[in-house]
């Protein structure tokens, strides 16, 4: 299979294109996904943009406005419509411009998309994908910077995916589109331009399978989405100090590959979870509690979480930069944990 370097953004674009080519039931709907529904008489109006990050650029040219639908600013309306369209036999892929705007369509997701299969007897599928954009560090203020993986992972009936690189993004989005259930597919805005080797042909990565991004035996670091890269950078520094960190990328947060994490902890005895989200009632605290439940005897010290703070994401650069866990902090946590030193939580 031929592979080449591709950005995260282009890998997502390719997954959408290939699935739309393969299955005429797949369609996209979202704000500006066609690239600005300008007036047809204007040159360039048919494919001007592809959303604020250009992820869907070019798709309207290939598939037309019937399958790449520029919605109005009405998330409640178009996410609701996707549920009905999925029942009707289509495979909608909705785009919510920022994960924060999921708030507007939360009822549709929480009370309908997630629950209707169960409440209607477990038979009717809702093959719906909601793509959205997560993460801080973009100088975009508190309603354009949240993670929200935890909120969606809390809800039974939803699958939640948050890839950390282009390869995983393509394979997991293809799986999400083919999946019979509603999937929340989180794309980190700070990863869009990051490249990795991506096969040209379509391929599917199973939902619910984590991935060991770096093998080690001194400490297990679980990174959440962009924090996988932070953990890998830290692991390179730790290596020079003789600490061999194992870095795990859960990739899917619901279902969560807790077995993979526990197996690693059984080998290393230490667990650090790095997540840029808020610390409380979070995916990090969930992983921590599940590991305590399943692998307590393997632990050589307390599990630590290095997370964002219990505050909305601030805008001002020094505050926002402090909010996001840094490579240096990961290094400091890991060395202290292995030495058995007390670490004062930063939140």
């Amino acid at each position: 299979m031929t592979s080449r370097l591709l950005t995260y953004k282009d890998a997502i674009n390719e997954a959408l294109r290939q699935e739309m080519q393969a299955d005429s039931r797949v369609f996209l709907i979202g704000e500006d996904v066609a690239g600005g529904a300008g007036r047809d008489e204007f040159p360039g109006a048919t494919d001007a943009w592809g959303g604020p990050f250009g992820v869907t650029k070019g798709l309207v040219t290939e598939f037309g406005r019937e399958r790449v639908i520029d919605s109005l600013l009405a998330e409640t309306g178009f996410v609701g419509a996707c549920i009905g369209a999925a029942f009707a036999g289509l495979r909608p892929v909705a785009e919510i411009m920022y994960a924060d705007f999921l708030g507007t369509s939360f009822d549709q997701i929480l009370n309908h998309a997630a629950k209707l299969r169960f409440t209607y007897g477990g038979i009717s599928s809702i093959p719906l994908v909601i793509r959205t954009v997560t993460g801080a560090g973009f100088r975009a203020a508190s309603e354009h910077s949240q993670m929200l993986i935890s909120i969606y992972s809390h809800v039974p009936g939803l699958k939640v995916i948050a890839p950390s690189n282009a390869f995983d993004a393509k394979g997991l989005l293809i799986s999400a589109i083919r999946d019979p259930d509603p999937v929340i597919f989180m794309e980190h805005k700070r990863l869009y331009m990051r490249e990795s080797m991506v096969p040209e042909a379509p391929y599917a990565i199973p939902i619910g399978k984590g991935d060991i991004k770096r093998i080690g035996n001194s400490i297990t670091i679980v990174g959440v989405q962009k924090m996988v890269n932070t953990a890998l950078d830290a692991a390179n520094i730790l290596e020079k100090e003789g600490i061999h960190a194992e870095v795990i990328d859960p990739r899917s947060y619901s279902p969560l590959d807790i077995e993979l994490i526990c197996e690693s902890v059984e080998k290393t005895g230490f667990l650090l979870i790095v997540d840029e989200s808020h610390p409380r009632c979070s995916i990090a605290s969930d992983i921590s509690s599940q590991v305590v439940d399943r692998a307590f005897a393997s632990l050589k010290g307390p599990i630590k979480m290095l997370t964002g703070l219990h505050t909305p994401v601030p805008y001002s650069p020094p505050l926002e930069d402090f909010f996001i866990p840094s490579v240096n902090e990961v290094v400091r946590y890991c060395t202290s944990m292995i030495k058995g030193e007390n670490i004062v939580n930063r939140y």
Partner: protein
Amino acid sequence: MTTDSKWGKETLRQMLLIRNFEETADKLTLRGKVPGGMHNSSGQEAVAVGVMSALDPKDVIATTHRSHHHTIAKGMPVNIVMAELFTKATGCSGGRGASMHLADVENGHFGGNGIVGAGVGIAMGAALGIKQMGHKKVAVGFVGDGGVNTGRTWEAVNMAVIYKLPLIIIVDNNQYAVETFVERVTGGNDIAKRGAGFGLPSFTIDGQDVEEVHKHTSEARNRALAGEGPTFINALTYRYYGHNVGEKGQYRTQEEIADWRSHRDPIDRFSAKLISEGALTQADYEAMINSVAKEIEEAVDFAEKSPLPDVSTILDGVDSGLLGARK
């Protein structure tokens, strides 16, 4: 109708101040002095100044992600606005919210925010509070043409009608929701008619004519103070720049932008009127342009010299702190 000279000059000065602020801030954003992005309101000055000049300082506004013009017209000093764009500790929100979160609740500015259509609901609640407390003032909710296609906007309009609230809804209709042309996504293509469907006085007006905006807002305010309930005003305007700084959209032609700039610019139109009526001389006008430029220069200087917020304050203001609940 001849314009009152004093009112006319102050109105023009404010529009010039907003224009200079926006064009300066836009450049500073491109140069990275202002972190992140911002939503430039150049072209839309007459809506902000026309509305605000008809209000009392006690009146309340709630606005949108594009709110520099509303905020400056509402009376927030430009150095404080600029400092917030620079995310400095001296900004109105201490650098925590930046361009989209300009607010001064104590002085009746109930804030902008990054969620489309949210301002009208907040303004409607302010009007409810005003009515319940028996205050003699009104609330104004701004929404864009994108926001008129959200359900929440109409929930708020309906409630304002049934509770007869002292609310004025202003559609700051610049015709593009990010890059989506309003006519393409607005069924019926008559926003004022939608308002009328809820049973309140509803108008489409020329948002490039500051006096027309002022007149309609004044009349709406009088009705609100007389207990006659809300008014809906769809003010047609145009933004000269992209949705966000640096956007090079291909969704509208250069000719369209040039046409709005050269034939319908609110500042050119109003300054020409004042000069033709003898209320303003060309020399006065040039002096005004220079004084406004100096004011903005000083604002930039203030913002540049102000300190960034200290990292030790990062948890401040998450809640009231009354319970010491910081975790």
